[in-house]
């Protein structure tokens, strides 16, 4: 008898399926906009006006970095909690409510962004409807209030989703008081906890500053403050995208390889480290911001380097789990076991190639994180190359590969074509290799990011190796291959949904462990403790920089609002001393 996810949890499967389709829709639109940008920037094909470039760029960034990733995340996390706890959510109406709230928020955000394409955008709430503010949306760029309201609804939707997972776990815990938290649920809960911590920053930024500013309630804001509050959230959101990918690598990839997860305790340690360290390092995006002392930037760099640890632990654990599978499948030799892995399985191959790209992204990420070398690549195309390896491949390719397993699970329908799926994941890998390597190299000689026309009069870029034309050609070719791959993916998903139901869908299971939770110290499951430490680390990393920014620039801009933060007579000398020490 078939035992797929849709058979076990039919109501939850409908929500998960809806979340996946929401994410695919965002991927389709955002991905095509990526091609438009690549062809425009490289001057291969320019059919939009350069003044519309930022509308395209904003749609590309928001739809892919926020909508595609997070809708897929809520689908995977709902699956992970219900499957590993072996029970449904507490109230499916509540589950639908957060999904609808996220969709509503997305629609509002999209309407605001897409109005930017109109010759004469309509005037609503007293201002023109547009939102050419890029994915980072901090001031001085200003969007229409509807954009910010949409973002708030979307984020509150994710908060409710997190509450839904927590209360499902609480209900399970009441019946299983002595049991360890199952690993997939543990991963979901730790990720949700740091999401709550980091989104407080963006909520404060929007509700206290950007939204009142766009509504005309306040005349100005402190740009450095909104930037810092954005990056307080903006780097943790990177790990929010990445954690469902890690969930897939830890609990699916070992099974797909034919083996077991090498170590459950190590996986728990990794997720605890992400809970602790994801947020107190956002200032590493602001190494070139004047107004933040070097000492605070150094603290952010140190925290960032510490965060390499869980990624390197993951590299070891996941590769060891794959090796275990390969050797169980008959693999031999020091490296000969690699040939015993199921490379013809698109789910495995997609995830494994995504992991390989992530290893390369680890190097370029270390360059970004280093304070001195960051000066070389800051705001260049290098950075764009880097995050197309992380969110654009490690995350996106893993999600697409995972969809080949998940869509049959939540629909009961067999995948339309495994061969097309395999070709699709390979094509993505090849396309991204062309595009990303050229972007990285362009950054090394200073080619800027976020510009429609990177050609300047009386100035030529001087690459050490190759030519600008060659790199532009690689970017354009890579972007075309990526969109072809994207079309193949969507085609496979659509045609799968037209398939009839099948009895040969694999069981809904995830990987067993070689070293299970019984080997993990119980303190690892003490979520209150880790959350408290995470909050303390955030307070250490951000109190002084934020106080300093507000003191020098005011809450709503220097010398404009007259509301300077008063630190009190006792704190002021101590702050001065600390500032001297770290500056």
């Amino acid at each position, binding site marked *: 008898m078939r035992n797929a996810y849709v058979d076990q949890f039919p109501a939850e499967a409908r929500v998960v399926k809806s979340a996946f389709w929401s994410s695919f829709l965002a991927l389709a639109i955002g991905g095509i906009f990526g091609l438009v940008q690549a062809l425009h920037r490289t001057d291969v094909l320019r059919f939009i006006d350069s003044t519309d470039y930022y509308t395209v760029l904003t749609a590309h960034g928001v739809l892919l970095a926020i909508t595609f990733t997070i809708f897929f995340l809520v689908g995977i996390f709902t699956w992970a909690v219900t499957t590993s706890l072996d029970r449904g959510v507490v109230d499916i109406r509540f589950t639908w409510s957060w999904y609808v709230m996220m969709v509503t928020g997305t629609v509002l955000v999209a309407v605001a962004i897409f109005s930017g394409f109109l010759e004469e955008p309509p005037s609503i709430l007293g201002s023109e409807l547009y939102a050419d503010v890029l994915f980072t949306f901090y001031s001085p760029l200003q969007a229409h209030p509807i954009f910010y309201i949409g973002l708030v609804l979307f984020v509150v939707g994710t908060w409710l989703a997190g509450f839904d997972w927590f209360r499902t776990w609480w209900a399970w815990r009441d019946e299983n008081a002595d049991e360890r938290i199952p690993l997939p649920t543990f991963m979901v809960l730790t990720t949700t906890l740091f999401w709550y911590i980091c989104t407080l920053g963006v909520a404060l930024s929007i509700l206290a500053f950007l939204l009142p500013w766009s509504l005309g309630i306040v005349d100005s804001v402190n740009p450095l403050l909104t930037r810092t509050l954005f990056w307080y959230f903006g780097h943790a959101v990177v790990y929010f995208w990445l954690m469902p990918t890690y969930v897939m690598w830890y609990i699916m990839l070992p099974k797909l390889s034919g083996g077991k997860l090498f170590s459950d305790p190590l996986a728990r340690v990794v997720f605890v480290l992400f809970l602790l360290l994801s947020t107190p390092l956002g200032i590493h995006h602001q190494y070139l911001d004047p107004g933040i002392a070097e000492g605070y930037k150094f603290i952010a760099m140190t925290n960032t380097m510490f965060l390499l640890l869980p990624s390197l632990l993951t590299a070891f654990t996941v590769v060891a789990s794959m090796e275990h599978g390969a050797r169980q499948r008959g693999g031999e030799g*020091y490296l000969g076991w690699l040939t015993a892995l199921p490379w013809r399985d698109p789910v495995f191959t997609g995830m494994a190639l995504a992991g390989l790209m992530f290893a390369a992204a680890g190097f370029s990420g270390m360059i970004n994180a280093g304070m001195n070398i960051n000066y070389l690549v800051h705001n260049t195309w290098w950075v764009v190359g880097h995050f197309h390896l992380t969110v654009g491949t490690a995350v996106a390719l893993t999600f697409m590969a995972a969809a080949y397993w998940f869509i049959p699970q939540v629909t009961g329908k067999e995948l339309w074509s*495994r061969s097309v799926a395999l070709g699709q994941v390979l094509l993505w890998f090849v396309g991204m290799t062309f595009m990303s390597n050229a972007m990285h190299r362009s950054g090394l000689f200073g080619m800027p990011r976020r510009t429609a026309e990177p050609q300047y009069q009386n100035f030529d870029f001087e690459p050490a190796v190759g030519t600008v034309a060659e790199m532009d050609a690689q970017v354009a070719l890579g972007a075309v291959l990526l969109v072809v791959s994207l079309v193949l993916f969507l085609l496979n998903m659509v045609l799968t949904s037209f398939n009839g139901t099948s009895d040969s869908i694999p069981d809904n299971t995830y990987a067993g462990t070689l070293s299970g939770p019984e080997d993990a110290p119980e303190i690892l499951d003490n979520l209150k403790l880790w959350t408290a430490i995470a909050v303390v680390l955030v307070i250490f990393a951000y109190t002084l920089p934020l106080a300093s920014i507000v003191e020098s620039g005011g809450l709503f801009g220097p010398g404009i609002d007259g509301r300077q933060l008063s630190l009190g007579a006792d704190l002021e000398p101590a702050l001065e001393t600390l500032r001297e020490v770290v500056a």
Partner: protein
Amino acid sequence: MSSATERETGDRAVESDSGDIGTVRELGHDEFDPIGTLILIAIYFAILVMLWLFMYFVEFLGNGPTVVGSLATVVGLA
């Protein structure tokens, strides 16, 4: 299960419809020695070291010293 999209063939999948060979032996915690993983990670670290050396030339000899000018002076690069 050896392949995510294979047809179900029971607890111990032997061969999927793509021709992949399934599990042929069970390896427990104590029998498994991840020597191949060690080799791959050693190769990765070697690549990282080479890339860092490469970045040294890009950063210091290509574009001149930036924020560590004093160090560059000490080592005779500036």
